[in-house]
């Protein structure tokens, strides 16, 4: 009888204790920010898990790339409706080889990019964030190779360096990159061929959002590039001239104060593999060009 009554009470006590500890952790971390003991404990945890993530990714990437390739096939086929069914079948068979060809191309593009930014740090994407509400990736380079917080991260080819995001946290052997998709991410950008500029804000797995002047004349398929700026001699995080994406939708509303524009990112984040971390000084020339 005693045993039966004692168990629930000790359970309740335990839960109260654990909840109190959680609340204490939240308070402590909330007040101390990125410098507190919990933040450094977090970095230790990230340092420990990064090599494991890298190992898992190196095994699973070819497999998941294959499935992503298969999943993309229907939309490809739709685009090429006139293609005969045989061709679609042939494509399904070739999907595996296509993935490797893409990867080779990606690496060659990165080599070209690195010629343009000689002190850029090449890195491989080893994992994504664990949360459904943050849009981040982990890369396999950290302070050991000179990566620091706020460095811009790009991908793509020399003709079109594409914006991936910026470094928000670094450990010795890995860094966390906030993607431009993240809802906390915003970047100042200009619309190619027009005088329009505005803030491009991430919206998770939806297209990026940007508000421009209501009387802007847009074709609806312009490219969007980052625009460098300087406040009190302090340059923005991103150099100018990085491709963010292409306008996918313009939704004008009568009498609105601004014109909402949706932008499809230039980078395919589901298959993002190799990236280049730019040291902050590489884009000085670009920025002088863009300065008004």
């Amino acid at each position, binding site marked *: 009888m005693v045993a039966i009554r004692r168990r629930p009470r*000790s359970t309740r006590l335990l839960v109260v204790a654990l909840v109190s*500890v959680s609340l204490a952790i939240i308070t402590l971390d909330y007040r101390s920010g990125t410098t507190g003991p*919990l933040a450094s404990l977090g970095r230790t945890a990230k340092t420990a898990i990064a090599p494991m993530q890298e190992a898992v990714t190196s095994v699973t990437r070819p497999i998941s790339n294959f499935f*992503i390739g298969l999943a993309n096939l229907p939309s490809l086929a739709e685009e090429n409706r006139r293609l005969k069914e045989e061709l679609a079948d042939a494509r399904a068979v070739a999907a595996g080889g296509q993935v490797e060809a893409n990867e080779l191309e990606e690496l060659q593009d990165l080599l070209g990019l690195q010629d343009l930014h000689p002190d850029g740090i090449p890195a491989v994407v080893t994992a994504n964030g664990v949360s459904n509400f943050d849009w981040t990736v982990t890369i396999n380079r950290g302070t050991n190779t000179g990566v620091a917080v706020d460095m811009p991260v790009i991908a793509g080819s020399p003709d079109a360096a594409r914006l991936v995001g910026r470094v928000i946290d670094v450990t010795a052997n890995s860094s966390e990159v906030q993607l431009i998709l993240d809802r906390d991410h915003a970047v100042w950008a200009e619309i190619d061929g027009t005088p329009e500029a505005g803030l491009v804000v991430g919206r998770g797995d939806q297209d990026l959002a940007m508000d421009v002047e209501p009387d802007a004349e847009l074709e609806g398929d312009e490219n969007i590039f980052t625009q460098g700026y300087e406040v009190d001699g302090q340059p923005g995080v991103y150099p100018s001239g990085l491709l963010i994406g292409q306008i996918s939708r313009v939704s004008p509303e009568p009498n609105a104060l601004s014109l909402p524009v949706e932008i499809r990112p230039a980078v395919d984040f589901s298959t993002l593999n190799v990236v280049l971390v730019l040291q902050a000084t590489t884009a000085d020339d670009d920025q002088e060009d863009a300065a008004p």
Partner: protein
Amino acid sequence: MIRRVVAVGVIIVTALLLQSTVFAQLRLLGVRPELLYLVTVVVAFLEGPSEGAVVGFISGFAQDLLLNEPKGILALTLTLLGYTIGMLRQFIVSPSPFLPVILVALGTAGGVLFYVVVSFLLGNYDDSIANAVRVALLAALYNAILTPLLFPLLRRVFEGSRPTRVVRF
């Protein structure tokens, strides 16, 4: 006892690894499963409220360390989730094999929404309510789909490492 602690540690690390690599690639309409919610619910279902709360706290804190939110929110969420499911379990007599699936789905949806509310109260959530509900429901659905695969595995691990009960009078 030590065997059990090691088992829980391995399960948590594996879940975090899978969630950040494989399942981050294989998303369901842009949403990945919340494996630690699943683990917490299953443990609470099998072992009762106190074990559910403890495993919930540990796994929540482990994931918190990898997040950039104020740490501790998920620890709080999963502690309460483990306790709630464990308590609820005592009042359910249904022998249905779908019971774990239903509990995982309900627990995940409720847990994610609770997490969003706490995150919002701390000024850390700047997304729409509609998206929070969408993520909660899709994560619940994804977890529910994974439960039939993972439940037998987790049950085997936990029953295999269960300490021999001493019956006291």
